[in-house]
């Protein structure tokens, strides 16, 4: 329908999540007609990122360094390790500024139906790290889904023999939330993990 290069661009833009043929077409024409400078910048940034970004050899997060800035920082508490499912989870913690330890990024969760097992998440690397003895506490911050819970449970099992303290993010009533709008499952979690009021 379009010239080969425009078709190629539309096809390439469809690689983005949530972008279908219509959106891809709109983006392609916007870039070509109204923002060629932006298009060149986007292409260069994409190329540079794809070629330069890899995984941190300590925490598996995305970085262009061998070891990411957080893992290298002397200000971070290297004895506390927070396990998260994705690099965006790291960003959320960092934006909130509530955590001063280091991270371990799984890039997913255990999902037997999809054939994703412990080795696919780098849990063998995590186990080796726990056995080295530097980590004193591991904070399980996997998502509160069935697969996230199974992943947390598996990590707690591998941490058992290492003497590392295993903690899990609290789950229950959100700040500003009203009980009336909570579903039964969340309420059950909240009541089961209630703490002494101080």
């Amino acid at each position, binding site marked *: 329908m379009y010239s080969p290069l425009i078709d190629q661009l539309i096809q390439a833009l469809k690689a983005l999540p949530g972008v279908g043929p219509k959106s891809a077409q709109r983006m392609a024409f916007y870039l070509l007609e109204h923002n060629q400078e932006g298009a060149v910048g986007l292409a260069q940034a994409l190329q540079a990122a794809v070629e330069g970004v890899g995984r941190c050899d300590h925490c598996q997060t995305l970085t262009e360094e061998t070891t990411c800035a957080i893992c290298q920082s002397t200000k971070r508490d290297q004895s506390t390790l927070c396990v998260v499912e994705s690099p965006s989870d790291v960003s959320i913690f960092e934006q909130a500024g509530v955590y001063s330890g280091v991270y371990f990024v799984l890039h997913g969760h255990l999902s*037997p139906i999809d054939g994703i097992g412990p*080795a696919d998440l780098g849990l063998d690397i995590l186990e080796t790290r726990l056995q080295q003895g530097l980590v004193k506490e591991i904070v399980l911050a996997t998502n509160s889904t*069935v697969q996230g819970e199974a992943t947390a*449970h598996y990590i707690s099992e591998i941490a058992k023999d290492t003497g590392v303290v295993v903690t899990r993010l609290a789950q229950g009533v959100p700040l500003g939330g009203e009980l009336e709008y909570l*579903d039964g499952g969340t309420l059950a979690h909240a009541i089961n993990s209630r703490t002494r009021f101080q």
Partner: protein
Amino acid sequence: MAVNFLNPAFILRTQKYRETGLIVDFFCPNYGKVSAVAKKALSFKGYLSLYQPFMPLSISWQGQSELKQLISIESSGNSVHLKGLIFYSACYLNELLLKLLPVAENSIELFGQYLLTINTLGQNPSRSEEEIVLRSFESALIKHLGYEIGFTTTDHSECIFNIDTNYVLLPERGFITEDDFLSESTFRNRQAGGQSLLFSGPHLVELSKFGLQREGTRKTAKIINRIMIDYLLGDKPLNSRKIYGQMLGRLQNK
């Protein structure tokens, strides 16, 4: 087909759909496997916890195509809590249903067996209890798909196996004696028979007589069901079985 009334359902699998939606595969007693789009599932925070497997739900949907549009979803009980290896067993059930269950087919009996199996798995069963419910579920699924293996005469009065005979299981035909198999088998139809395995008469008689109550009979049932399931799956891989094997290996090495 619009189903505006609430139906019991369990989620087999969810996949992301665009930014805030999910494509959900449900297991419903009256409709078998139902796939539906839940457009705002991830933006409607209050209901996020409902889109999890192993939680009894009530759902309704609309749409003419195979992929329906979810209209409503609500919890109809507490989520079954599955820990450790039991979680992988439960995922195995879901994967079997996902890959073998036909769309829009009455599955009331199988749904009942699923409910029983999931609830048993949630009660931290012993290894033998776990094996019994898993094998029973596999048999119920095989029967549901029209491949029930007969162990007794049609009036259920007698076991069809002889203690001094060996048998071969052909998935498309059931058990035949080893002699019959050898006499009617040319190289060509042995190939066409696909996966088959020799079973000793005493093992089959024991299974027929004692069901899944003995360790030996559970082993025999496991082999029979595996042959049938592999045949029914064809070339579809069974991921959860592979991961379960890895996890079991890890535990045994500890």
